[in-house]
Every structure is written in C-alpha cells, then in structure tokens.
C-alpha cells in the first residue's frame, strides 16, 4: 500500500513539474499542409504537399519569432503521376539535387494583435530566406499566428516567381501551361513545448 501511495505521489510530482513546460514558450514543432496553384492560360494546376517546421515562438514577444519551415518535394502531388515526375525532374525543380523547399526566418514586425476568449491572434510581417530549386531569395510575407493554450497555428500565402529561382521548365510550357508565378500557401499546427 505504501509503495502504491509513493508511486502516485511520484507520478503527481512529475505531472505537476512537467505541466508548465508544456505550455512554456519556446520551440514549436509544426506539421501541416503546403499548397500551390499555377493558373496558366492553358491549364490550372493545384499542388498539395506536407510541410514541417520548427519555430521558436514566445507569445509575450511575438516579434522575436524565428524558425524554419520545409516542404519535401517528395510529398508534393498534383494529381497526375507523370506531371509529378516532370515537376521533380531535371527541367523543373530537380528534386534529386534540391529535395526541399524551405523558408528560414528570424525576427518579424508585429502588424496586429488581437484576442478572442483564450485565442490570441498575431499578424506578423516576416522576412526571411526562401529557397526553391537550390536558389535562395529574400522573402517578405504576412503570417497569421494564433495560439490557444499550448496550441499554435500558422498560416501564410505568397506568390513565387519561378524565374527568380532559375526554374526554366520545358521550352514553350512556361507561361502557357505553367504559370510564370505560382501562389503558394502553408497552413501548420503545432504545440508549444513539443519535441
């Protein structure tokens, strides 16, 4: 009986000690969906992939946000196997050499902040380095970040000009079947204190 009591006490102590750590600010591991839309005169292509990220975020100092979000090209699908192969192939994104699309950022400008119940919303202007096709370019985008207890949600959308990242594509295809720029968006969720 005494062993049982001490076990319960130990468990309660561990639970109480770890509770603040779960909701503490810090590193957030994100998972979610990345999408792109290419709206060319001859065809509209929608792509879906999975996104993962690691972000340092403190709700008390949202402008100090930093982190990296990646989208493995292997997860990106457009609904047609052959087109997916072309997308990852040598004429387009060269997935064998450049397997990920990534956005690395450090610091942000707080544009707006609001709260509704226990949900806090932050609108941030984030500036970072956006890498596609092994070509890194500066990117400034608006990010909506929401928190509810330890839960964090991130949403962002921005255009990507393919020529900026030296994506030439097959001759005659760019601009007619594939847009010169695509609209990219990410939607991620994570939990503060997650490992």
């Amino acid at each position, binding site marked *: 009986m005494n062993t049982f009591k001490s076990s319960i006490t130990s468990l309660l102590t561990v639970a109480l000690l770890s509770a603040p750590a779960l909701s503490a600010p810090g590193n957030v591991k994100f998972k979610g969906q990345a999408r792109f839309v290419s709206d060319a005169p001859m065809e*509209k292509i929608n792509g879906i992939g999975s996104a993962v990220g690691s972000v340092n975020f403190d709700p008390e100092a949202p402008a100090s946000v930093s982190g990296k979000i990646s989208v493995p090209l292997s997860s990106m*699908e457009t*609904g047609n196997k*052959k087109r997916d192969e072309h997308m990852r192939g040598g004429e387009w994104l060269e997935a064998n050499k450049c397997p990920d699309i990534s956005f690395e950022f450090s610091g942000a400008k707080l544009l707006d902040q609001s709260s*509704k119940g226990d949900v806090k919303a932050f609108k941030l202007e984030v500036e970072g380095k956006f890498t596609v096709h092994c070509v890194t370019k500066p990117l400034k985008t608006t990010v909506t970040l929401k928190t509810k207890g330890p839960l964090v949600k991130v949403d962002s959308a921005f255009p990507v000009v393919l020529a900026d990242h030296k994506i030439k594509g097959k001759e005659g295809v760019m601009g007619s079947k594939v847009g010169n720029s695509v609209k990219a968006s990410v939607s991620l969720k994570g939990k503060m204190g997650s490992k």
Partner: protein
Amino acid sequence: MSGLQKVAALCLLASTLVMGLWAYKGVTTGFKLATPEKIEVKTTSVDEFGDEVERLELVENPDKLDIGLDLAGPISGVLGALAVGLFLLDRKQKG
C-alpha cells in the same frame, strides 16, 4: 461498303468519340491537358481555434472517363491514322 471500309469507319467514329469525350468533359469540368488521376476533395471543419478551415486531399478519381489531352490526343490520333490507312488500303485493293 467493304470490310476494310467498315473497320476504318469504326476507327474514325471511335477517334471522334474520344475527342468528343475530352471536349465534353472540358466544357463541363474544365479543359485538361493532363489526365486527373487523382482529384481534390475539400473538407471544411471548425478547428480548435474556432476558425473554419479548409483541408484538401487528393483521392483517386472515380470518373475513369475524365481524361486529359495527354490520353485523348494520342488515342484519337492513332485511331484516326488507322482509319485513314485502312481507307487508303481499301482504295489500293480496289483500284
């Protein structure tokens, strides 16, 4: 009408039907260059933050007749060429 002519006419009809199917699907759901083997399914739900969120998922296209020009073009072309070839062969045999 000879046997060859009948087969040629059937090929021509099939060729026209394939392109007609592509055009019909194009008019109803949008013209496609690539066959949509998978289609997007949107699910809308309210998340933990009280926001209405839309999630897209790619699922197998149940409509096997929903073809793109990547399939319709070559199939129709081969059938059309076969029809012309058979007509010419028939003319050669007769003449």
